[in-house]
């Protein structure tokens, strides 16, 4: 499967680091910007402002119009090639970036949105507004993921609900959305992301991997039944 990730978090682009891409150059070809591939098989294509900054610590201090313009270029001018799935990672909020992505994807089909929350009410309180955003903009909600849902102590296996528990599932119920599942807090996942390692390769037997797998399978099933 050929997958692309478009990172439209222009102020805080995390995708390059999480996928250990360092600072490769972005090249141009006849059909536009060449995305950054994570491997020679080109199974995962990335685009992020993180690849375009001279200095990785440089702040992107842009107001809305400039952000919208770059997002437009990311959608239209990147030579993604034949992709099975394009994932768009967004910053928090319901503002310029979100509107820009939808406007630029208007001529293509947007299957829907996955909403990620942590369990506590302070988070689900914001995600309710994101649900309204999706409804108002006609974006189908593919489902809700409850992230950071419980922590199993590696020393004694006691489960602690560090950020509370169940809020994501309850939100899905009260808003009539699909609940995709919970992903626990896992220091091994955090460490993998820090080092840009593929957690699914390193820890295929973990409960976390099992949770993420199950979520992606449910999603694929719902995309295929369209």
């Amino acid at each position: 499967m050929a997958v692309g990730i478009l990172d439209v978090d222009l102020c805080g682009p995390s995708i390059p680091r999480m996928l250990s891409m360092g600072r490769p150059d972005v090249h141009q070809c006849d059909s536009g910007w060449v995305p950054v591939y994570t491997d020679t098989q080109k199974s995962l294509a990335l685009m992020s402002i993180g690849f375009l900054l001279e200095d990785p610590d440089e702040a992107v201090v842009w107001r809305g119009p400039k952000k919208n313009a770059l997002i437009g270029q990311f959608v239209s001018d990147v030579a993604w090639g034949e992709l099975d799935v394009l994932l768009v990672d967004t910053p928090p909020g319901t503002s310029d970036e979100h509107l820009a992505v939808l406007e630029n994807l208007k001529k293509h089909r947007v299957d829907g949105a996955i909403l990620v929350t942590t369990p506590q009410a302070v988070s689900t309180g914001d995600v309710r507004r994101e649900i309204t955003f999706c409804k108002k903009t006609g974006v189908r909600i593919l489902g809700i993921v409850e992230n950071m849902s419980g922590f199993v102590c590696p020393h004694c296996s006691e489960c602690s609900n560090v950020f509370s528990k169940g809020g994501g599932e309850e939100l899905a119920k009260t808003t009539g959305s699909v609940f995709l599942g919970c992903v626990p807090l896992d220091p091994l996942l955090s460490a993998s992301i820090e080092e840009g390692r593929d957690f699914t390769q390193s820890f295929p037997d973990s409960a976390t991997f099992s949770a993420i797998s199950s979520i992606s399978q449910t999603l694929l099933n719902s995309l295929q039944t369209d």
Partner: protein
Amino acid sequence: YFVQPHFILTTTTRNCPGTTSEQAGKSAPCQGCPNQKLCASGATKAPDPAIAEIGEKLSTVKHKILVLSGKGGVGKSTFSAHLAHALASDTTKEIALLDVDICGPSIPRIVGLEGEQVHQSGSGWSPVYVEDNLAVMSIGFLLSSPDDAVIWRGPKKNGIIKQFLRDVDWGELDYLIVDTPPGTSDEHLSIVQYLSATHVDGAIIITTPQEVSLQDVRKEIRFCQKVKMPIIGVVENMSGFVCPKCKNTSQIFPPSTGGAEKMCADLKLPLLGKVPLDPRIARSCDEGRSFLSEVPDSPAAEAYQKIVKSEFVFRKTPTQMSIVQSVTIKGQNKSCVT
């Protein structure tokens, strides 16, 4: 002593001459720009009168602090709310907490004021009071339902921030704490711009230990340097978790590149403190109660109290400015050296 931050101009047009230049609206690249007429009329050269009005109105506020982060979900709002609570424990002081996270206003819930509404009077908008001496303003109080989404582009967000600063009847204040959304964009530029005619103590920057957060926080620090905002210091949140059963500590968010401690050492910024993860924090915030009162003996509450009482918070500004200057003179951000 005034901090005069730069107003970073951004445009939609390549080779824009700048909205305040002589050529604004008149040069070749201006053709077709949506702002052309406005620029040509000279309106963009004039400073927004609200800046001076806000400067006047907030001139009696003794301390103003921004709470910033490059990263979302690190605990800015939690910190802002509890900083306000801690300051308000001195009942002789008047505290205000302003929430400028327009799309995700969390402050009303965290301080137990969800569902409250704002009233208008002859002297402006009345903030909502948590305690007699702790006033709060948030767009959350202007929304009629917790499901309402604020789907606004930059200019409209900037407009409400201006109103929050100019039109809220705060009364005489000792402290104004401003909670912000993550990022370095419209809200941040507007807050800096609208406070440019008044003295700001500086920014407290919140992070979590892992590099994925620090990466974004370094950008926030650069933003502060660009706009000449002093940095009071950095708080590292979610710094370790002690299992309530076996008491072993786990680094759920590992400080793989040395955490905030190394970043602060590298950038010569004060590390104000490290707050551990504690499930009771999330619970208190969800229930709208101060965890400083709920679990005052917890390591997290103790860490917060230590930060609030830290010598770096509300220190005299000349010393704060020298911290920032030593960073810029090192050449970290050449554009800041003047």
